[in-house]
């Protein structure tokens, strides 16, 4: 019959690894915005029918976000620390993803 042990193993491994990647990346974004550098990524194409933005509007929005982020109550040292944490979590997240690539390519691990 069904192999419940390996099923739970798969579910657990997937849960832990997916959450690890997402938490690390989200933490990076959070620290980036804490440091007053919230990223602004304009959609490559507006598939959502509600938001259709011209390049000028996108640039204005980016400027607005930059200005708003600069109103951070943190000291410069705290900001630098937050930035360091942000980059650290992005790098860790990238390493986890690279491990995923390593698992996909059998030539690397067999």
């Amino acid at each position: 019959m069904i192999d419940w042990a390996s099923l739970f193993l798969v579910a657990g491994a997937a849960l832990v690894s997916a959450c690890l990647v997402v938490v690390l990346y989200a933490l990076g974004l959070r620290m980036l915005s804490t440091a007053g550098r919230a990223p602004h990524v304009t959609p490559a194409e507006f598939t959502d029918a509600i938001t259709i933005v011209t390049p000028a509007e996108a640039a204005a929005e980016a400027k607005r976000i930059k200005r708003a982020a600069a109103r951070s109550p943190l000291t410069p040292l705290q900001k630098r620390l937050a930035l360091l944490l942000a980059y650290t979590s992005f790098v860790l997240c990238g390493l986890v993803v690279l491990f995923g690539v390593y698992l996909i390519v059998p030539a690397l691990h067999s």
Partner: protein
Amino acid sequence: MDLTLIVVLVIVLALFFDFTNGFHDTANAMATPIATGAMRPKVAVALAAVLNLVGAFLSTEVARTISNGLIREGEGGVLISPTMIFAGLVGAVIWNLVTWLFGLPSSSSHALFGGLIGAAIVGAGLGSVDYLVLLDKVVLPALLSPVIAGLVAFCATRAAYAITRRYDGLPDGRAGFRFAQIFSSSLVALAHGTNDAQKTMGVITLVLISAGVLAPASNPPVLVIAACALAIAVGTYTGGWRIIRTLGKGLTDIKPAQGFAAETSTAATILASSHLGFALSTTQVASGSVIGSGLGRRGSSVRWGTAGRIGLGWLMTLPASAIVGAVAALIGLLGPLGVVIDLVAAAGVIVVIFVISKRDRVHARNAFEGVNEVAESARVVRIRKVKPKRPRRSAA
């Protein structure tokens, strides 16, 4: 002579199945990044195609597991003839095209299993199928994989929103998830390439072995690998836009953070399942992830009607393709004339499906337009409010 003709037919049909597999499954990796605008639609499908091509060359481990155990072959079992594989492929291809017409993301492997099972039952009787293995390897994973992936995606989405939520009104930087989506969806596409092209390679190798061209238990030749890789890449680039529409907009409205969480969950679940030995279907995992991410964001809703339709499609995939495969086997086993009748009938059905699909074409440009009438009307209001004379949409 007769045998070589049927072998050639099977190879051609297997490559066509590989093509439909590619274009059926583009949505698994690329529906969410297209929906959130992380990549332009054409760029996204091109990236997926390249990664599928690369993935197909990376691994040939899965190639000979296709009929492993499911159909009793070898000593004391039944001999799978090329005609039966041909009939099975007819069932798989036709069912893949039918589900594509309805925009349903259904598992291509289930269609292939179904077709082969149907053909085997007709060719070698009811006893030729190991039903316990069928339940264990196909039916139960189909029920469990969307649940597991949905749970993982739900937790990941919750975490992503909780961590980036700000109460002080400063920018939260969630748009940054859009950038990450490019990588997470690429991972899904690569994992798909290493899995799905293998199935066709397995079928073609099996036929070549049964025809005596290759020695038993040999690896797929380079030419077979290259042909399969190319077929799945071309299929992926063609893009099953109907299915991309269903997964990207039909189930729930996806924001970048949800898209990233869903893609990461899909990739993690597929990788875990292929490395820890409990095979799950890519399509079902991807659909489950999208639903889970829809449940995970506050204020978003899942369209359960669409989810139900998809579920119904999954339930029908195995029996429906088995019936088509069985009918094809019934005719095909009459002899060479039967195979010709099969071929003509299958070609006829495929042409009819394409003609029907032309009535409302779905392609890169219109995949996400007019899905939601409320959004559509909101757009009209906004255009009137901002600048009425200039067209809001750039030529892109």
